[in-house]
């Protein structure tokens, strides 16, 4: 099946710093989504981005489908950004990566 790799696995940031999270996938996909898992375990939809670039406030994402990767940018990070960020791709069912655990410290 399709492989999804996320990097880095762990990231510690000072509040106010910027970061880039990466998602590589092994085959063509027709859907790519980024999620934030909050401390209560809920999966919060961040972006549906099979290709191109989208922005939502301090977050933006870019997917280059032909090169099989996606990037999630977080600018001016806040402590509330802490949690695990998952990339998930779909060829048939949605396949998740292992996530990037982000810790933003004051």
């Amino acid at each position, binding site marked *: 099946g399709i492989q999804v790799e996320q990097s880095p696995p762990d990231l510690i940031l000072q509040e106010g710093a910027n970061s880039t999270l990466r998602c590589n996938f092994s085959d063509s996909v027709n*859907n790519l989504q980024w999620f934030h898992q909050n401390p209560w375990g809920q*999966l919060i*939809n961040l972006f549906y981005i099979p290709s191109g670039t989208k922005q939502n406030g301090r977050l933006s994402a870019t997917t280059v489908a032909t090169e099989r990767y996606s990037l999630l940018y977080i600018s001016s990070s806040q402590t509330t950004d802490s949690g695990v960020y998952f990339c998930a791709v779909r060829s048939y*069912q949605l396949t*998740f990566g292992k996530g990037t655990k982000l810790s933003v410290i004051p």
Partner: protein
Amino acid sequence: EPEVTQTPSHQVTQMGQEVILRCVPISNHLYFYWYRQILGQKVEFLVSFYNNEISEKSEIFDDQFSVERPDGSNFTLKIRSTKLEDSAMYFCASVTGYNEQFFGPGTRLTVL
């Protein structure tokens, strides 16, 4: 804004007992999914459901699991005889097609 809902939010059960996890997908969606996340691990696909039948299932979805859409709104996951390793967060998701999947808040299942 329409959303996927799941009940209960937390279920505690004894090993060997049957549990039913419930989901109400978004009303005009056609495809429904169950996913599982063991604590500290990634989210894994269990089963997809379309037109009142299973369209795809993973190796995890063995004979202990079943899904049903008993009426026009609910979508259920049943585990017949729970094992300790079934302890996990279970997510329901729905979608109109090959588009964005919308996830419910999850049910945390604890098997003692």
